[in-house]
């Protein structure tokens, strides 16, 4: 057990000390911040102003909604893209041969495999929770402070999404054996995930076909959970909001996600994610424990 903990610590330490690994993992969240600062914030603000044109609503509520959208997007991408980058350690160890130096010790293979998953989870959680803290400070500064209950929901969402990112990346990164593979997957994930999880543009603004495809991806529900918990508390503060308008707003913000025309409830979102995580971990452990090739 002690050995196992040291192995996890080693993985985490190598990740945070490896500037290449660590900084590439921050690229996607940084791109998102730049996009918000330059034009996404304005676009979202304009769309809120037009949606609320018949309803009296304070300037500060709109600011809060825009910030809520920023922080939910940011957390949705970080949890997954940081997990992928940090789990590149598994592939790197194989490419540099460091894994051979670990394999000559009496540690069981299954522990080594599990250590990569757990280290990725912990490293990503450290980054994501730090990001969440910065996000909460930011929204406070911008004039809206989340209640303790809402904050706990956000933390819980971050944990679930980080687990999702860690387990999915474990399976995919397990098959990377070359530097080319690592950069390829790294680039695809960091460029693509922000898009398909709806961090740059709401999923509701995509074509119907694309929306249908995305409704099959569990990551979509992760985004939606964060949207709900970041935006619902703010929407609740708006008085005299007709329910048809509220539904329209929630649809537009991806708080409502449809699976073949049915709105998915929060509970089902959690359930989908948790089942996905469990399945991914099982697949990873099965594949990696079987996969040692000494032939």
């Amino acid at each position: 057990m002690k050995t196992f903990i040291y192995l996890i610590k080693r993985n985490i330490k190598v990740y945070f000390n490896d500037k290449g690994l660590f900084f590439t993992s921050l690229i996607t969240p940084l791109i998102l911040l730049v996009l918000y600062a330059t034009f996404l914030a304005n676009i979202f603000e304009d769309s809120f102003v037009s949606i609320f044109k018949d309803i009296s609503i304070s300037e500060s509520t709109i600011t809060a909604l825009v910030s809520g959208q920023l922080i939910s997007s940011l957390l949705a991408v970080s949890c997954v893209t940081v997990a992928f980058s940090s789990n590149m350690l598994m592939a790197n160890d194989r490419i540099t041969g460091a894994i051979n130096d670990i394999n000559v010790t009496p540690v069981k293979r299954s522990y080594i495999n599990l250590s990569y998953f757990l280290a990725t989870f912990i490293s990503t959680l450290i980054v994501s929770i730090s990001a969440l803290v910065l996000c909460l400070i930011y929204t406070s500064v911008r004039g809206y402070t989340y209640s303790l209950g809402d904050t706990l929901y956000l933390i819980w969402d971050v944990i679930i999404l980080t687990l999702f990112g860690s387990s999915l990346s474990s399976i995919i990164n397990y098959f990377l054996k070359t530097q080319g593979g690592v950069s390829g997957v790294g680039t695809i994930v960091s460029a693509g995930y922000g898009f398909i999880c709806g961090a740059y543009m709401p999923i509701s603004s995509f074509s119907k076909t694309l929306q249908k495809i995305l409704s099959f991806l569990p990551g979509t529900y992760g985004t939606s959970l964060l949207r709900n918990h970041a935006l619902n508390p703010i929407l609740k503060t708006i008085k005299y909001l007709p329910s048809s308008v509220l539904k329209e707003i929630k649809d537009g913000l991806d708080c409502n996600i449809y699976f073949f025309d049915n709105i998915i409830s929060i509970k089902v979102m959690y359930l989908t994610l948790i089942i996905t995580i469990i399945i991914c971990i099982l697949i990873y452990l099965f594949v990696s424990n079987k996969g040692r090739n000494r032939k």
Partner: protein
Amino acid sequence: MNEVIKINNITKSYGNVLAVNDLSFKVKKGELFSFLGINGAGKSTTIKIIVGELFPDHGEIKVCGKDIRTDEDEIKRKIGVVFQDSLLDKTLSVYDNLKYRAALYGITGEEFKERYKRLSKIFSLEDICNRKVNTLSGGQRRRVDIARALIHNPEILILDEPTTGLDPGTRNSIWKIINNLRKKENLTVFLTTHYMEEADDSDYIVILDKGHVIGEGSPLELKNKYAKDMVIIYNVKEEDIKKLKMTYHKIRNGFKIEVNSISIVTDLIVKHKDIFKDYEVIKGRMDDVFLSATGYELEEK
């Protein structure tokens, strides 16, 4: 239990490449065993098979009488290995590297600190313990590599080209450490190298070519078998040399005669005292052994 490593007829291919071909040899306890061969001879592959990183296609390996397939843990605790390329975590400090590797053998806390202190003294790590591995010089990194291989007090130390690429001074200091360890701890050292003079100090040598043993024995045996001894005679006239009735080569101020065994020289000297006024007898060197055994030119010469 005198044989710590026993390899019987192992064969290993990577796809079409036959890396190890029906290889057999034994390593005895406490000896310095050298494994010679040019690049691609199959040295590293053999090491990977011994440490259980690869399984052979055919054949059998016993380490201290145990089989890696059934007693993997036990064997791994008995072997410390320095791979050809340093495999430490480059971004971690020397101390952290040793700490995390030691933990993989279950060595933590006070037990680790004690071992670290000892190794740190032997390998002079005090000054570099907080340096990241990627800032170390080649020689410093090699010292840390060997310290890491010894972190769990193994009985067998396997070194895959430990001194390749190091300057002569650094090579000497590394050898001093290894020789000291052998004396003090009765450590068995399994070495691959292509510096022939390093093999000269070994107890037993196996010469490998294309995955197969082409010569083995103590350095003396190998020299007697493969390397011609020679005598150089100075300040004599060519007509005197002709009297010896041997093939000779003229060199700057004398003549060189190659002989198959030193006893021939002894006979010559006894018979022709008058010719042998100023001469030297030179034993064949490991370089010559390697050349005549393999038929290759040495790369770094």
